[in-house]
Protein backbone atom coordinates (compact mmCIF):
# COMPACT_ATOMS: atom_id res chain seq x y z
CA UNK A 1 0.00 0.00 0.00
CA UNK A 2 2.88 2.30 0.82
CA UNK A 3 5.70 1.27 -1.52
CA UNK A 4 6.67 3.27 -4.59
CA UNK A 5 4.58 6.33 -3.87
CA UNK A 6 5.80 9.84 -3.06
CA UNK A 7 6.81 10.40 0.53
CA UNK A 8 4.08 13.07 1.03
CA UNK A 9 1.39 10.57 0.05
CA UNK A 10 3.04 7.91 2.13
CA UNK A 11 2.96 9.97 5.31
CA UNK A 12 -0.61 11.12 4.61
CA UNK A 13 -1.83 7.59 3.98
CA UNK A 14 -0.09 6.27 7.05
CA UNK A 15 -1.73 8.94 9.21
CA UNK A 16 -5.17 8.43 7.66
CA UNK A 17 -4.94 4.67 7.95
CA UNK A 18 -3.96 4.93 11.59
CA UNK A 19 -6.71 7.38 12.52
CA UNK A 20 -9.26 5.36 10.53
CA UNK A 21 -8.30 2.22 12.37
CA UNK A 22 -8.53 3.99 15.76
CA UNK A 23 -11.97 5.36 14.91
CA UNK A 24 -13.16 1.97 13.75
CA UNK A 25 -11.91 0.24 16.90
CA UNK A 26 -13.44 2.93 19.16
CA UNK A 27 -16.83 2.81 17.51
CA UNK A 28 -16.83 -0.99 17.38
CA UNK A 29 -16.08 -1.32 21.07
CA UNK A 30 -18.75 1.24 21.94
CA UNK A 31 -21.21 -0.58 19.71
CA UNK A 32 -20.49 -3.91 21.37
CA UNK A 33 -20.82 -2.28 24.80
CA UNK A 34 -24.11 -0.69 23.77
CA UNK A 35 -25.58 -3.93 22.50
CA UNK A 36 -24.55 -5.82 25.63
CA UNK A 37 -25.86 -3.21 28.10
CA UNK A 38 -29.09 -2.74 26.12
CA UNK A 39 -29.76 -6.46 26.15
CA UNK A 40 -29.02 -6.67 29.86
CA UNK A 41 -31.42 -3.77 30.49
CA UNK A 42 -34.06 -5.31 28.27
CA UNK A 43 -33.84 -8.63 30.15
CA UNK A 44 -34.00 -6.92 33.49
CA UNK A 45 -36.97 -4.73 32.57
CA UNK A 46 -38.88 -7.57 30.97
CA UNK A 47 -38.16 -9.73 34.01
CA UNK A 48 -39.52 -7.03 36.34
CA UNK A 49 -42.64 -6.65 34.20
CA UNK A 50 -43.09 -10.41 34.09
CA UNK A 51 -42.79 -10.62 37.89
CA UNK A 52 -45.41 -7.89 38.36
CA UNK A 53 -47.83 -9.50 35.92
CA UNK A 54 -47.27 -12.99 37.33
CA UNK A 55 -47.87 -11.89 40.92
CA UNK A 56 -51.03 -10.05 39.75
CA UNK A 57 -52.33 -13.05 37.90
CA UNK A 58 -52.24 -15.55 40.80
CA UNK A 59 -55.83 -14.71 41.73
CA UNK A 60 -57.12 -15.12 38.18
CA UNK A 61 -55.46 -18.51 37.96
CA UNK A 62 -56.47 -19.58 41.42
CA UNK A 63 -60.10 -18.73 40.72
CA UNK A 64 -59.90 -19.91 37.13
CA UNK A 65 -61.06 -16.50 35.88
CA UNK A 66 -59.98 -16.20 32.22
CA UNK A 67 -61.72 -12.85 31.86
CA UNK A 68 -59.56 -11.34 34.64
CA UNK A 69 -56.49 -12.81 33.10
CA UNK A 70 -57.45 -11.51 29.65
CA UNK A 71 -58.13 -8.07 31.02
CA UNK A 72 -54.87 -7.89 32.78
CA UNK A 73 -52.92 -9.01 29.77
CA UNK A 74 -54.78 -6.53 27.57
CA UNK A 75 -53.32 -3.79 29.75
CA UNK A 76 -50.00 -4.63 28.06
CA UNK A 77 -51.13 -2.52 25.12
CA UNK A 78 -49.37 0.31 26.88
CA UNK A 79 -46.09 -1.48 26.33
CA UNK A 80 -45.83 -1.57 22.55
CA UNK A 81 -42.59 -3.55 22.61
CA UNK A 82 -44.37 -6.56 24.10
CA UNK A 83 -45.82 -8.29 21.11
CA UNK A 84 -47.15 -11.44 22.68
CA UNK A 85 -48.08 -12.44 26.22
CA UNK A 86 -49.65 -15.67 27.48
CA UNK A 87 -50.53 -17.46 30.68
CA UNK A 88 -50.41 -21.24 30.93
CA UNK A 89 -52.02 -23.15 33.77
CA UNK A 90 -50.13 -25.71 35.78
CA UNK A 91 -51.18 -28.42 33.32
CA UNK A 92 -49.38 -26.50 30.56
CA UNK A 93 -52.63 -25.53 28.85
CA UNK A 94 -52.99 -22.01 27.43
CA UNK A 95 -55.10 -20.11 29.95
CA UNK A 96 -55.03 -16.59 28.53
CA UNK A 97 -53.22 -14.74 25.75
CA UNK A 98 -52.54 -11.26 24.41
CA UNK A 99 -53.54 -10.46 21.85
CA UNK A 100 -56.50 -12.78 22.03
CA UNK A 101 -56.08 -13.86 18.44
CA UNK A 102 -56.21 -17.67 18.36
CA UNK A 103 -54.00 -17.97 15.40
CA UNK A 104 -51.03 -17.10 17.51
CA UNK A 105 -48.72 -20.09 17.77
CA UNK A 106 -47.55 -19.82 21.32
CA UNK A 107 -45.21 -22.57 22.26
CA UNK A 108 -46.05 -24.49 25.44
CA UNK A 109 -43.61 -23.95 28.24
CA UNK A 110 -40.81 -26.49 28.51
CA UNK A 111 -40.57 -25.97 32.24
CA UNK A 112 -42.02 -23.79 34.99
CA UNK A 113 -38.72 -22.13 35.81
CA UNK A 114 -37.88 -18.50 35.25
CA UNK A 115 -35.85 -18.04 32.05
CA UNK A 116 -35.04 -15.53 29.36
CA UNK A 117 -33.59 -15.96 25.89
CA UNK A 118 -33.26 -14.17 22.61
CA UNK A 119 -34.81 -15.63 19.53
CA UNK A 120 -34.91 -14.14 15.99
CA UNK A 121 -34.54 -10.52 17.17
CA UNK A 122 -36.97 -11.03 20.06
CA UNK A 123 -36.55 -11.47 23.81
CA UNK A 124 -38.57 -14.34 25.24
CA UNK A 125 -39.27 -14.50 28.97
CA UNK A 126 -40.96 -17.21 31.09
CA UNK A 127 -42.01 -16.34 34.66
CA UNK A 128 -43.64 -18.95 36.96
CA UNK A 129 -46.87 -17.85 38.70
CA UNK A 130 -46.47 -18.85 42.29
CA UNK A 131 -48.74 -18.55 45.35
CA UNK A 132 -47.56 -19.73 48.74
CA UNK A 133 -44.85 -21.83 47.16
CA UNK A 134 -47.37 -23.52 44.94
CA UNK A 135 -46.80 -23.19 41.16
CA UNK A 136 -50.12 -22.22 39.55
CA UNK A 137 -48.87 -21.70 36.05
CA UNK A 138 -46.39 -19.82 33.91
CA UNK A 139 -46.34 -16.38 32.19
CA UNK A 140 -44.92 -16.09 28.65
CA UNK A 141 -43.75 -12.70 27.28
CA UNK A 142 -42.34 -11.97 23.83
CA UNK A 143 -40.77 -8.56 23.40
CA UNK A 144 -39.35 -7.16 20.22
CA UNK A 145 -35.97 -5.31 20.16
CA UNK A 146 -37.11 -2.39 18.02
CA UNK A 147 -36.04 0.10 20.64
CA UNK A 148 -32.55 -1.31 20.55
CA UNK A 149 -32.43 -1.25 16.76
CA UNK A 150 -33.67 2.31 16.73
CA UNK A 151 -31.01 3.18 19.19
CA UNK A 152 -28.32 1.38 17.24
CA UNK A 153 -29.43 3.13 14.08
CA UNK A 154 -29.10 6.47 15.78
CA UNK A 155 -25.79 5.42 17.17
CA UNK A 156 -24.55 4.39 13.70
CA UNK A 157 -25.72 7.67 12.22
CA UNK A 158 -23.88 9.63 14.88
CA UNK A 159 -20.86 7.40 14.52
CA UNK A 160 -20.90 7.91 10.72
CA UNK A 161 -21.12 11.69 11.05
CA UNK A 162 -18.42 11.75 13.71
CA UNK A 163 -16.28 9.48 11.56
CA UNK A 164 -16.61 11.67 8.50
CA UNK A 165 -15.90 14.82 10.47
CA UNK A 166 -12.94 13.29 12.25
CA UNK A 167 -11.67 11.84 9.00
CA UNK A 168 -11.79 15.23 7.36
CA UNK A 169 -10.11 16.78 10.39
CA UNK A 170 -7.55 13.99 10.40
CA UNK A 171 -6.88 14.61 6.73
CA UNK A 172 -6.40 18.31 7.32
CA UNK A 173 -4.13 17.68 10.29
CA UNK A 174 -2.25 14.93 8.50
CA UNK A 175 -1.70 17.12 5.44
CA UNK A 176 -0.33 19.79 7.68
CA UNK A 177 1.72 17.39 9.79
CA UNK A 178 3.18 15.43 6.91
CA UNK A 179 4.68 18.65 5.61
CA UNK A 180 6.87 19.00 8.63
CA UNK A 181 8.00 15.38 8.26
CA UNK A 182 8.50 15.25 4.54
CA UNK A 183 9.66 18.78 3.89
CA UNK A 184 13.28 18.37 5.07
CA UNK A 185 13.57 15.12 3.10
CA UNK A 186 12.02 16.70 0.00
CA UNK A 187 14.33 19.70 0.34
CA UNK A 188 17.31 17.35 0.56
CA UNK A 189 16.10 15.40 -2.50
CA UNK A 190 15.66 18.66 -4.42
CA UNK A 191 19.20 19.77 -3.53
CA UNK A 192 20.58 16.38 -4.59
CA UNK A 193 18.73 16.68 -7.90
CA UNK A 194 20.09 20.17 -8.58
CA UNK A 195 23.62 19.02 -7.79
CA UNK A 196 23.47 15.96 -9.99
CA UNK A 197 21.99 18.01 -12.83
CA UNK A 198 24.33 20.99 -12.64
CA UNK A 199 27.37 19.10 -11.34
CA UNK A 200 27.89 21.99 -8.97
CA UNK A 201 29.33 20.52 -5.79
CA UNK A 202 29.54 23.88 -4.07
CA UNK A 203 25.76 23.86 -3.40
CA UNK A 204 24.76 22.91 0.21
CA UNK A 205 21.52 21.54 1.64
CA UNK A 206 19.88 23.69 4.33
CA UNK A 207 19.62 22.11 7.77
CA UNK A 208 16.23 22.83 9.39
CA UNK A 209 15.95 20.38 12.26
CA UNK A 210 18.13 18.73 14.85
CA UNK A 211 16.85 15.21 14.37
CA UNK A 212 17.56 12.35 11.94
CA UNK A 213 16.91 14.53 8.90
CA UNK A 214 19.35 17.01 10.37
CA UNK A 215 21.92 14.23 10.65
CA UNK A 216 21.12 13.23 7.07
CA UNK A 217 21.57 16.81 5.87
CA UNK A 218 24.84 17.14 7.74
CA UNK A 219 26.14 13.85 6.33
CA UNK A 220 25.01 14.87 2.86
CA UNK A 221 26.72 18.25 3.13
CA UNK A 222 29.87 16.65 4.45
CA UNK A 223 29.89 14.23 1.54
CA UNK A 224 29.45 17.15 -0.84
CA UNK A 225 32.31 18.98 0.79
CA UNK A 226 34.49 15.92 0.39
CA UNK A 227 33.54 15.48 -3.26
CA UNK A 228 34.15 19.16 -3.83
CA UNK A 229 37.56 18.96 -2.18
CA UNK A 230 38.45 15.81 -4.08
CA UNK A 231 37.34 17.38 -7.35
CA UNK A 232 39.50 20.38 -6.67
CA UNK A 233 42.38 18.11 -5.81
CA UNK A 234 41.93 16.12 -9.01
CA UNK A 235 41.71 19.35 -10.96
CA UNK A 236 44.87 20.68 -9.44
CA UNK A 237 46.57 17.32 -10.06
CA UNK A 238 45.46 17.51 -13.66
CA UNK A 239 46.70 21.04 -13.95
CA UNK A 240 50.04 20.04 -12.49
CA UNK A 241 50.17 17.07 -14.80
CA UNK A 242 49.39 19.25 -17.77
CA UNK A 243 52.06 21.70 -16.74
CA UNK A 244 54.52 18.86 -16.31
CA UNK A 245 53.60 17.45 -19.70
CA UNK A 246 53.92 20.90 -21.23
CA UNK A 247 57.33 21.33 -19.70
CA UNK A 248 58.44 17.86 -20.76
CA UNK A 249 57.18 18.51 -24.28
CA UNK A 250 59.08 21.77 -24.36
CA UNK A 251 62.20 20.04 -23.08
CA UNK A 252 61.74 17.32 -25.62
CA UNK A 253 61.21 19.81 -28.41
CA UNK A 254 64.31 21.68 -27.34
CA UNK A 255 66.27 18.42 -27.20
CA UNK A 256 64.95 17.48 -30.62
CA UNK A 257 65.93 20.85 -32.03
CA UNK A 258 69.37 20.51 -30.51
CA UNK A 259 69.66 17.02 -31.92
CA UNK A 260 68.58 18.27 -35.31
CA UNK A 261 71.07 21.12 -35.21
CA UNK A 262 73.70 18.64 -34.13
CA UNK A 263 73.03 16.21 -36.96
CA UNK A 264 72.84 19.13 -39.40
CA UNK A 265 76.24 20.39 -38.44
CA UNK A 266 77.61 16.84 -38.34
CA UNK A 267 76.41 16.38 -41.87
CA UNK A 268 78.04 19.66 -42.94
CA UNK A 269 81.16 20.02 -40.89
CA UNK A 270 82.35 16.52 -40.11
CA UNK A 271 82.67 15.43 -43.68
CA UNK A 272 84.69 18.44 -44.92
CA UNK A 273 87.91 17.61 -43.04
CA UNK A 274 87.63 14.01 -44.18
CA UNK A 275 87.47 15.19 -47.75
CA UNK A 276 90.63 17.19 -47.21
CA UNK A 277 92.44 14.26 -45.61
CA UNK A 278 91.39 12.14 -48.53
CA UNK A 279 92.06 14.67 -51.22
CA UNK A 280 95.43 15.80 -50.01
CA UNK A 281 96.60 12.25 -49.37
CA UNK A 282 95.61 11.51 -52.95
CA UNK A 283 97.56 14.55 -54.14
CA UNK A 284 100.59 13.28 -52.31
CA UNK A 285 100.13 9.91 -54.00
CA UNK A 286 99.70 11.50 -57.41
CA UNK A 287 102.33 14.24 -57.28
CA UNK A 288 105.03 12.79 -55.06
CA UNK A 289 104.79 9.05 -55.56
CA UNK A 290 108.40 8.75 -56.65
CA UNK A 291 109.59 10.26 -53.36
CA UNK A 292 107.27 8.26 -51.09
CA UNK A 293 108.37 4.73 -51.66
CA UNK A 294 106.15 1.67 -51.25
CA UNK A 295 105.76 2.02 -47.49
CA UNK A 296 104.86 5.67 -47.75
CA UNK A 297 102.24 4.94 -50.38
CA UNK A 298 100.81 2.15 -48.26
CA UNK A 299 100.61 4.48 -45.26
CA UNK A 300 98.76 7.09 -47.32
CA UNK A 301 96.38 4.44 -48.63
CA UNK A 302 95.62 3.41 -45.05
CA UNK A 303 94.86 7.06 -44.21
CA UNK A 304 92.60 7.32 -47.24
CA UNK A 305 90.81 4.05 -46.43
CA UNK A 306 90.11 5.15 -42.88
CA UNK A 307 88.89 8.57 -43.91
CA UNK A 308 86.48 6.93 -46.33
CA UNK A 309 85.34 4.56 -43.61
CA UNK A 310 84.81 7.50 -41.27
CA UNK A 311 82.73 9.18 -43.96
CA UNK A 312 80.65 6.03 -44.32
CA UNK A 313 80.14 5.89 -40.56
CA UNK A 314 78.94 9.47 -40.47
CA UNK A 315 76.55 8.83 -43.36
CA UNK A 316 75.16 5.68 -41.76
CA UNK A 317 74.75 7.32 -38.39
CA UNK A 318 72.97 10.34 -39.82
CA UNK A 319 70.73 8.05 -41.75
CA UNK A 320 69.99 6.08 -38.60
CA UNK A 321 69.23 9.15 -36.50
CA UNK A 322 67.05 10.69 -39.21
CA UNK A 323 64.97 7.54 -39.38
CA UNK A 324 63.55 8.35 -35.95
CA UNK A 325 61.76 11.40 -37.33
CA UNK A 326 60.56 9.81 -40.52
CA UNK A 327 56.96 8.65 -40.66
CA UNK A 328 55.92 5.38 -42.24
CA UNK A 329 54.09 5.92 -45.55
CA UNK A 330 52.36 2.63 -46.30
CA UNK A 331 51.75 1.53 -49.87
CA UNK A 332 51.05 -1.89 -51.30
CA UNK A 333 54.50 -3.34 -51.97
CA UNK A 334 55.27 -5.98 -54.56
CA UNK A 335 57.89 -7.79 -52.50
CA UNK A 336 58.87 -10.11 -55.38
CA UNK A 337 59.99 -7.31 -57.69
CA UNK A 338 61.51 -5.34 -54.80
CA UNK A 339 63.69 -8.28 -53.76
CA UNK A 340 64.63 -9.05 -57.36
CA UNK A 341 65.65 -5.41 -57.95
CA UNK A 342 67.76 -5.34 -54.82
CA UNK A 343 69.44 -8.63 -55.78
CA UNK A 344 70.26 -7.28 -59.26
CA UNK A 345 71.78 -4.13 -57.80
CA UNK A 346 73.83 -6.02 -55.26
CA UNK A 347 75.08 -8.51 -57.83
CA UNK A 348 77.21 -5.69 -59.23
CA UNK A 349 78.77 -4.93 -55.85
CA UNK A 350 79.47 -8.55 -54.99
CA UNK A 351 81.14 -10.04 -58.04
CA UNK A 352 81.39 -13.50 -56.55
CA UNK A 353 78.29 -15.38 -57.60
CA UNK A 354 76.04 -16.75 -54.89
CA UNK A 355 73.13 -19.08 -55.51
CA UNK A 356 70.13 -16.90 -54.69
CA UNK A 357 66.74 -18.58 -54.37
CA UNK A 358 63.74 -16.27 -54.19
CA UNK A 359 60.57 -18.06 -53.13
CA UNK A 360 57.16 -16.49 -53.90
CA UNK A 361 56.75 -13.46 -51.65
CA UNK A 362 53.26 -12.15 -50.82
CA UNK A 363 52.74 -8.38 -51.17
CA UNK A 364 52.44 -6.23 -48.03
CA UNK A 365 51.40 -2.71 -47.01
CA UNK A 366 54.60 -0.97 -45.90
CA UNK A 367 56.88 2.01 -46.53
CA UNK A 368 58.54 1.39 -49.86
CA UNK A 369 61.94 3.03 -49.30
CA UNK A 370 62.23 1.77 -45.72
CA UNK A 371 61.48 -1.87 -46.57
CA UNK A 372 63.84 -1.58 -49.51
CA UNK A 373 66.57 -0.62 -47.04
CA UNK A 374 65.68 -3.60 -44.85
CA UNK A 375 65.85 -6.02 -47.78
CA UNK A 376 69.02 -4.41 -49.09
CA UNK A 377 70.74 -4.63 -45.72
CA UNK A 378 69.73 -8.23 -45.08
CA UNK A 379 70.63 -9.50 -48.55
CA UNK A 380 73.89 -7.57 -48.70
CA UNK A 381 74.74 -8.97 -45.27
CA UNK A 382 73.95 -12.46 -46.54
CA UNK A 383 76.13 -11.90 -49.61
CA UNK A 384 78.93 -10.35 -47.57
CA UNK A 385 79.08 -13.05 -44.93
CA UNK A 386 78.84 -15.94 -47.39
CA UNK A 387 81.43 -14.43 -49.73
CA UNK A 388 84.12 -16.82 -48.53
CA UNK A 389 82.01 -19.98 -48.82
CA UNK A 390 82.51 -22.35 -51.73
CA UNK A 391 78.82 -22.91 -52.44
CA UNK A 392 77.25 -19.74 -51.16
CA UNK A 393 73.48 -20.21 -50.94
CA UNK A 394 70.95 -17.55 -50.07
CA UNK A 395 67.24 -18.16 -49.69
CA UNK A 396 64.58 -15.47 -49.40
CA UNK A 397 61.07 -16.52 -48.46
CA UNK A 398 57.94 -15.72 -46.51
CA UNK A 399 55.11 -17.40 -44.68
CA UNK A 400 51.83 -16.05 -43.32
CA UNK A 401 50.85 -16.20 -39.65
CA UNK A 402 47.65 -14.94 -37.96
CA UNK A 403 47.74 -11.17 -38.50
CA UNK A 404 51.17 -10.79 -40.03
CA UNK A 405 53.60 -12.05 -42.65
CA UNK A 406 57.03 -13.33 -41.75
CA UNK A 407 59.82 -12.80 -44.29
CA UNK A 408 63.25 -14.34 -43.95
CA UNK A 409 66.68 -14.16 -45.53
CA UNK A 410 68.79 -17.26 -45.00
CA UNK A 411 72.44 -17.81 -45.86
CA UNK A 412 75.05 -20.50 -45.30
CA UNK A 413 77.84 -18.02 -44.61
CA UNK A 414 79.90 -17.10 -41.59
CA UNK A 415 76.90 -17.09 -39.27
CA UNK A 416 77.25 -15.96 -35.68
CA UNK A 417 77.44 -17.32 -32.17
CA UNK A 418 74.03 -17.10 -30.44
CA UNK A 419 76.01 -16.16 -27.29
CA UNK A 420 76.40 -12.66 -28.71
CA UNK A 421 72.83 -12.43 -29.97
CA UNK A 422 72.04 -9.40 -27.79
CA UNK A 423 74.69 -7.39 -29.62
CA UNK A 424 73.39 -8.24 -33.07
CA UNK A 425 71.01 -5.30 -33.49
CA UNK A 426 72.96 -2.69 -31.47
CA UNK A 427 74.35 0.45 -33.10
CA UNK A 428 78.09 0.14 -33.82
CA UNK A 429 77.98 -3.44 -32.53
CA UNK A 430 79.79 -5.89 -34.73
CA UNK A 431 80.35 -9.60 -34.36
CA UNK A 432 83.15 -9.67 -36.90
CA UNK A 433 86.32 -7.62 -37.14
CA UNK A 434 86.69 -5.04 -39.88
CA UNK A 435 89.43 -6.95 -41.70
CA UNK A 436 87.29 -10.09 -41.70
CA UNK A 437 84.17 -8.43 -43.05
CA UNK A 438 83.88 -4.70 -43.53
CA UNK A 439 80.97 -2.68 -42.21
CA UNK A 440 80.02 0.11 -39.86
CA UNK A 441 77.72 -1.79 -37.51
CA UNK A 442 74.73 0.41 -38.27
CA UNK A 443 72.92 -1.76 -40.82
CA UNK A 444 71.05 -4.14 -38.53
CA UNK A 445 70.28 -1.39 -36.03
CA UNK A 446 68.69 0.51 -38.91
CA UNK A 447 66.77 -2.58 -40.00
CA UNK A 448 65.46 -3.14 -36.50
CA UNK A 449 64.36 0.47 -36.22
CA UNK A 450 62.47 0.31 -39.50
CA UNK A 451 60.71 -2.92 -38.53
CA UNK A 452 59.82 -1.47 -35.11
CA UNK A 453 58.34 1.57 -36.86
CA UNK A 454 56.15 -0.82 -38.83
CA UNK A 455 55.07 -2.49 -35.58
CA UNK A 456 56.76 -5.69 -36.67
CA UNK A 457 59.33 -7.94 -35.05
CA UNK A 458 62.82 -8.94 -36.09
CA UNK A 459 64.95 -11.82 -34.86
CA UNK A 460 67.70 -14.08 -36.10
CA UNK A 461 69.04 -17.57 -35.76
CA UNK A 462 72.64 -18.43 -36.45
CA UNK A 463 75.48 -20.84 -35.95
CA UNK A 464 79.10 -19.98 -36.38
CA UNK A 465 80.44 -20.96 -39.82
CA UNK A 466 77.13 -22.54 -40.78
CA UNK A 467 75.00 -19.55 -41.62
CA UNK A 468 72.38 -17.21 -40.33
CA UNK A 469 68.68 -16.62 -40.89
CA UNK A 470 67.08 -13.24 -40.32
CA UNK A 471 63.34 -13.09 -39.87
CA UNK A 472 61.12 -10.04 -39.79
CA UNK A 473 57.35 -9.70 -39.52
CA UNK A 474 55.07 -7.03 -40.91
CA UNK A 475 51.44 -6.67 -39.81
CA UNK A 476 48.82 -7.44 -42.44
CA UNK A 477 45.85 -5.87 -40.72
CA UNK A 478 44.85 -2.50 -42.11
CA UNK A 479 44.60 0.30 -39.60
Amino acid at each position, binding site marked *: VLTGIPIKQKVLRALMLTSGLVLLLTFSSFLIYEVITFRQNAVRQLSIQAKIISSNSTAALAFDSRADANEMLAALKAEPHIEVAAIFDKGGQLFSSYPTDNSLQIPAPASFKEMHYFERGHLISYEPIVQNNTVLGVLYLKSNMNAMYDRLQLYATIAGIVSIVSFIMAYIFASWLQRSISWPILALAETAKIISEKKDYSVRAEKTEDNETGVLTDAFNQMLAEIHAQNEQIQSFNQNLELTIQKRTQDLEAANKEMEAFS*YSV*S*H*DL*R*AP*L*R*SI*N*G*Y*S*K*ILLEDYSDKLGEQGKQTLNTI*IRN*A*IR*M*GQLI*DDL*LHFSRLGKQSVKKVNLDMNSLVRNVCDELAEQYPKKADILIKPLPPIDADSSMIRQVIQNLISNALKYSMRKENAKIEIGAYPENDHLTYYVKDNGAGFDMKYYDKLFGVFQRLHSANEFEGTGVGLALVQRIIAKHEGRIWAEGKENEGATFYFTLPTNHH
Partner: protein
Amino acid sequence: MNDSIHDVDILMVEDSPDDAMLIIRELKKNNLSNRLVHLTDGVQALDFLFCKGTFSDRNIEHKPKLVLLDLKMPKIDGLQVLREIRQDPRTRSIPVVMMTSSREERDIAETYNLGVNAYVVKPVEFDNFSKAVTEIGMFWLLTNQSPK
Protein backbone atom coordinates in the same frame (compact mmCIF):
# COMPACT_ATOMS: atom_id res chain seq x y z
CA MET B 1 93.29 32.06 -60.41
CA ASN B 2 92.81 34.60 -63.13
CA ASP B 3 93.71 38.19 -62.33
CA SER B 4 91.07 39.61 -64.57
CA ILE B 5 87.78 40.21 -62.92
CA HIS B 6 86.11 41.36 -66.10
CA ASP B 7 86.00 38.25 -68.17
CA VAL B 8 85.19 35.31 -65.92
CA ASP B 9 84.10 31.78 -66.74
CA ILE B 10 83.72 30.37 -63.27
CA LEU B 11 82.96 32.21 -60.06
CA MET B 12 83.76 29.88 -57.21
CA VAL B 13 82.48 30.90 -53.76
CA GLU B 14 84.04 28.56 -51.24
CA ASP B 15 85.11 29.42 -47.71
CA SER B 16 87.28 26.36 -47.20
CA PRO B 17 90.68 26.98 -48.82
CA ASP B 18 91.34 23.25 -48.69
CA ASP B 19 88.24 22.38 -50.68
CA ALA B 20 88.86 25.32 -52.98
CA MET B 21 92.35 24.11 -53.79
CA LEU B 22 91.07 20.62 -54.51
CA ILE B 23 88.41 21.97 -56.85
CA ILE B 24 90.83 24.29 -58.66
CA ARG B 25 93.30 21.45 -59.01
CA GLU B 26 90.72 19.23 -60.67
CA LEU B 27 89.51 21.99 -62.96
CA LYS B 28 93.08 22.84 -63.87
CA LYS B 29 93.73 19.23 -64.84
CA ASN B 30 91.00 19.64 -67.44
CA ASN B 31 92.09 23.10 -68.47
CA LEU B 32 88.93 24.69 -67.15
CA SER B 33 90.42 27.02 -64.55
CA ASN B 34 91.98 29.72 -66.71
CA ARG B 35 89.26 32.22 -66.11
CA LEU B 36 88.24 31.43 -62.57
CA VAL B 37 87.66 33.77 -59.65
CA HIS B 38 87.68 32.38 -56.14
CA LEU B 39 85.88 34.30 -53.39
CA THR B 40 85.53 33.15 -49.81
CA ASP B 41 82.16 34.44 -48.60
CA GLY B 42 78.69 35.52 -49.67
CA VAL B 43 79.31 39.25 -49.22
CA GLN B 44 82.20 39.18 -51.69
CA ALA B 45 80.16 37.05 -54.05
CA LEU B 46 77.28 39.56 -54.12
CA ASP B 47 79.73 42.48 -54.50
CA PHE B 48 81.25 40.70 -57.46
CA LEU B 49 77.98 39.73 -59.13
CA PHE B 50 76.33 43.13 -58.65
CA CYS B 51 79.54 45.15 -59.23
CA LYS B 52 79.70 46.81 -55.84
CA GLY B 53 82.50 47.64 -53.40
CA THR B 54 85.88 46.38 -54.60
CA PHE B 55 84.23 45.16 -57.78
CA SER B 56 82.48 48.43 -58.65
CA ASP B 57 84.39 48.82 -61.88
CA ARG B 58 83.10 45.50 -63.18
CA ASN B 59 80.40 45.39 -65.85
CA ILE B 60 77.33 43.52 -64.73
CA GLU B 61 76.70 42.47 -68.31
CA HIS B 62 79.78 40.29 -68.21
CA LYS B 63 78.20 37.37 -66.51
CA PRO B 64 80.20 34.31 -65.45
CA LYS B 65 79.31 31.08 -67.24
CA LEU B 66 78.98 29.27 -63.95
CA VAL B 67 78.75 30.07 -60.26
CA LEU B 68 79.98 27.32 -57.95
CA LEU B 69 78.40 28.12 -54.61
CA ASP B 70 79.15 26.64 -51.22
CA LEU B 71 76.05 26.37 -49.02
CA LYS B 72 77.52 27.08 -45.60
CA MET B 73 79.61 30.22 -45.54
CA PRO B 74 80.36 33.01 -43.10
CA LYS B 75 78.33 36.27 -43.19
CA ILE B 76 75.99 35.55 -46.08
CA ASP B 77 75.37 31.93 -46.90
CA GLY B 78 74.91 30.24 -50.26
CA LEU B 79 71.13 30.25 -50.04
CA GLN B 80 71.02 34.04 -49.64
CA VAL B 81 73.44 34.57 -52.53
CA LEU B 82 71.34 32.27 -54.72
CA ARG B 83 68.16 34.12 -53.72
CA GLU B 84 69.60 37.49 -54.74
CA ILE B 85 70.98 36.16 -58.01
CA ARG B 86 67.54 34.81 -58.91
CA GLN B 87 65.69 37.95 -57.80
CA ASP B 88 67.61 40.31 -60.07
CA PRO B 89 66.69 40.06 -63.75
CA ARG B 90 70.25 40.96 -64.72
CA THR B 91 71.72 37.93 -62.99
CA ARG B 92 68.77 35.58 -63.08
CA SER B 93 70.02 33.49 -65.99
CA ILE B 94 73.45 32.71 -64.53
CA PRO B 95 73.83 28.95 -63.98
CA VAL B 96 74.40 28.22 -60.31
CA VAL B 97 75.64 24.89 -59.01
CA MET B 98 75.44 24.38 -55.25
CA MET B 99 78.37 22.40 -53.91
CA THR B 100 78.11 21.29 -50.35
CA SER B 101 78.92 18.61 -47.83
CA SER B 102 75.30 18.29 -46.76
CA ARG B 103 72.98 15.60 -47.90
CA GLU B 104 70.17 17.10 -45.75
CA GLU B 105 66.86 16.86 -47.53
CA ARG B 106 65.73 20.31 -46.41
CA ASP B 107 68.89 21.92 -47.85
CA ILE B 108 68.30 20.24 -51.19
CA ALA B 109 64.62 21.15 -51.25
CA GLU B 110 65.22 24.77 -50.27
CA THR B 111 68.00 25.22 -52.80
CA TYR B 112 65.85 23.84 -55.58
CA ASN B 113 62.94 26.05 -54.54
CA LEU B 114 65.22 29.04 -55.04
CA GLY B 115 66.00 27.89 -58.57
CA VAL B 116 69.39 26.26 -58.44
CA ASN B 117 70.63 24.52 -61.59
CA ALA B 118 72.29 21.62 -59.79
CA TYR B 119 72.96 20.39 -56.30
CA VAL B 120 76.13 18.40 -55.80
CA VAL B 121 77.19 16.71 -52.59
CA LYS B 122 80.96 16.88 -52.38
CA PRO B 123 82.00 13.25 -51.97
CA VAL B 124 84.42 12.35 -49.20
CA GLU B 125 86.06 9.86 -51.46
CA PHE B 126 88.57 11.71 -53.66
CA ASP B 127 88.10 9.84 -56.94
CA ASN B 128 84.39 10.51 -56.86
CA PHE B 129 85.07 14.10 -55.86
CA SER B 130 87.41 14.77 -58.77
CA LYS B 131 85.02 13.05 -61.14
CA ALA B 132 82.16 15.26 -59.93
CA VAL B 133 84.17 18.47 -60.29
CA THR B 134 85.37 17.55 -63.76
CA GLU B 135 81.86 16.67 -64.91
CA ILE B 136 80.43 19.93 -63.60
CA GLY B 137 83.17 21.98 -65.27
CA MET B 138 82.90 20.15 -68.57
CA PHE B 139 79.16 20.33 -68.73
CA TRP B 140 78.59 23.97 -67.80
CA LEU B 141 81.58 25.43 -69.68
CA LEU B 142 81.62 23.23 -72.75
CA THR B 143 78.32 21.40 -73.21
CA ASN B 144 75.78 23.85 -71.84
CA GLN B 145 74.64 26.93 -73.76
CA SER B 146 73.51 29.86 -71.62
CA PRO B 147 71.69 32.99 -72.86
CA LYS B 148 73.94 35.94 -73.57
